């Protein structure tokens, strides 16, 4: 091996190495700056849900005090139809809750409707549904349902004005001998006061322990791609026998209802703890004495497709977002008429540009 060959080879190797170093050096001299505006994935559309509360269970108690008869008439609306054998049981009692008896009376269900007068004007009307019956319990309900129970001396077997409390409880069946834990509607009355509005919540013989439900709360819904997230806050704790659930109403372009989609029961922010039992149990720290400080729902169209639009726009036609107060004995496939929070789904979600 000659000196010149070695020198040439060394020089070429050194040149290659230096060239490699120079290239790496140039690559290492990155003069990039901070980037804080790079979108990461799709953006989310958000909207608020606000208190509605127009249709929580409500009603009146009316006293009729005549020379020939005395009666107590209970009018109830905004309640959910109960499923199976469950019933709304009506009781009369003394004002302090003693002397409970079933309020046997004449029961009639009505459908609240809008009719036209002979002049063509709209007029709200009540249309009887079925025949009147003698009963102290019922399972009827719904957003347009009105139930009237008239209790008089003949049906009760005594003077109903000797009592001072009307109590509506929810029972497994009409055979219940004593009120259960779910006592959502009540009103006290005297022969001289009429009519009296029903209170919704949970009745207790000790007035200090009575719970009056207030339909409040707020929340924000976010939709990002396939995922819908709902964050709710400051809801009243549901009365015993009730829980919060979430529904979405789908409408077509003519605002006609296509479907009502049940999202599910309200959950704690961890996304795994159902708040179905929040009425009677502190299942999660968000459940306070009289409120639920935070609620959550999540829908992932990649895994939950029931009721969602197929394709890349799963939330198409979603028009109304509802958080309802559901009776535990109600039909879970039907939304309760008690809408607590309501939100209008914005156009980018309801009518996405990408079909």
């Amino acid at each position: 091996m000659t000196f010149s060959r070695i020198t040439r080879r060394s020089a070429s190797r050194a040149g290659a190495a230096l060239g490699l170093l120079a290239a790496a050096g140039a690559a290492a001299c990155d003069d990039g700056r901070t980037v804080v505006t790079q979108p990461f994935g799709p953006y989310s559309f958000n909207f608020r849900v606000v208190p509605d509360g127009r249709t929580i269970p409500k009603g009146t108690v009316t006293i009729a005090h005549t020379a020939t008869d005395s009666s107590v008439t209970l009018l109830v609306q905004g309640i959910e139809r109960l499923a199976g054998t469950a019933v709304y049981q009506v009781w009369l009692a003394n004002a302090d809750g003693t002397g409970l008896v079933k309020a046997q009376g004449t029961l009639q269900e009505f459908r609240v409707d809008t009719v036209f007068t002979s002049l063509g004007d709209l007029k709200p009307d009540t249309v009887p549904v079925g025949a009147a019956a003698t009963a102290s319990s019922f399972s009827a309900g719904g957003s347009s349902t009105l139930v009237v129970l008239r209790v008089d001396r003949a049906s009760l077997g005594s003077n109903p004005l000797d009592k001072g409390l009307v109590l509506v409880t929810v029972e497994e069946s009409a055979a219940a001998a004593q009120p259960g834990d779910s006592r959502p509607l009540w009103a006290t009355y005297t022969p001289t006061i009429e009519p009296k509005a029903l209170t919704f919540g949970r009745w207790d013989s000790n007035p200090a322990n009575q719970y009056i439900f207030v339909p409040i709360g707020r929340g924000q819904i976010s939709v990002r791609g396939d995922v819908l997230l709902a964050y709710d806050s400051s809801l009243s704790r549901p009365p015993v026998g009730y829980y919060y659930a979430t529904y979405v109403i789908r409408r077509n372009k003519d605002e006609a209802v296509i479907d009502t989609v049940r999202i599910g029961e309200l959950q704690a922010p961890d996304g795994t703890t159902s708040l179905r039992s929040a009425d009677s149990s502190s299942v999660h720290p968000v459940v306070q004495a009289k409120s639920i400080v935070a609620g959550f729902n999540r829908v992932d169209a990649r895994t939950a497709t029931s009721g969602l639009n197929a394709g890349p726009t799963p939330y198409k036609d979603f028009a109304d977002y509802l958080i309802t107060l559901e009776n535990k004995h109600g039909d879970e496939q039907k939304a309760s008429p008690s809408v607590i929070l309501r939100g209008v789904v914005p156009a980018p979600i309801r009518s996405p540009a990408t079909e």
Partner: protein
Amino acid sequence: MRSSLARRLMAAAASVAVVGGIAVGAGAQESPTPAGARGNGSVTPRAGYARFDRASSIKPAPFLAVEAAYQLTPNISFGPALTVSRGQTYGEDYLTALTFGDPSKGDTTFILANQQPVTLVDVGAIVTARMPGTRYSPFVTGGVGAYSLYLDPQQSNDSRRYTHLSTMVGGGLDLQFSRQAGIRLDVRDQIFSGYDRRRLNPADIRFQNTRFVQDLPAPPENKSVLHNFLLSVGFTFRPSLPTGEGEGGSD
């Protein structure tokens, strides 16, 4: 700030050059000796690719390094080393949310990835043990020093820097193609201690994204000790021997 950083880098490079020069100069005062002999010195600029520990939140990046070595024995050398890299952080590890519009009427939220360039400077002393006397000389090396992480001052509104202990272990192969020059292939595990990836977050806490967390990539778990994989090629120069001295000894 940039001039400040440049000054620091230049100072570090000058330190290495001075120490390296001393080492090389010490070798030059010796009588001509074969490569690897005691008293010989070398300087090795290297360039390569650094695959940082994922927990560092720094993307893989090229790096430059230079190290000087003084032969304590024919097998053992000692000297300073400087490694400089400028990488980008993973934007998805630092997500923020920016909302536009009126929340009461519906609004739009952008989830943004925040990435920033960071300058990584590692200065240390290393000891290398090699098998001398052959054209292909494998070696193992280890060292200790300190690394400094310089954040983007434009984003940080400050000349923010974090410095902690670093250690290093590695090995490689020296390819000797003359008495004065050679190529080094080098693999190292650069170990950072006291690391906290949260310091690299360029966004204010007010803008942290808190929604759709389940649907977004989870940032790596914060670790204080990181293992970074460095692969490099370098050019080794031994100026202590006059050209032609002992030529062909390794052929």
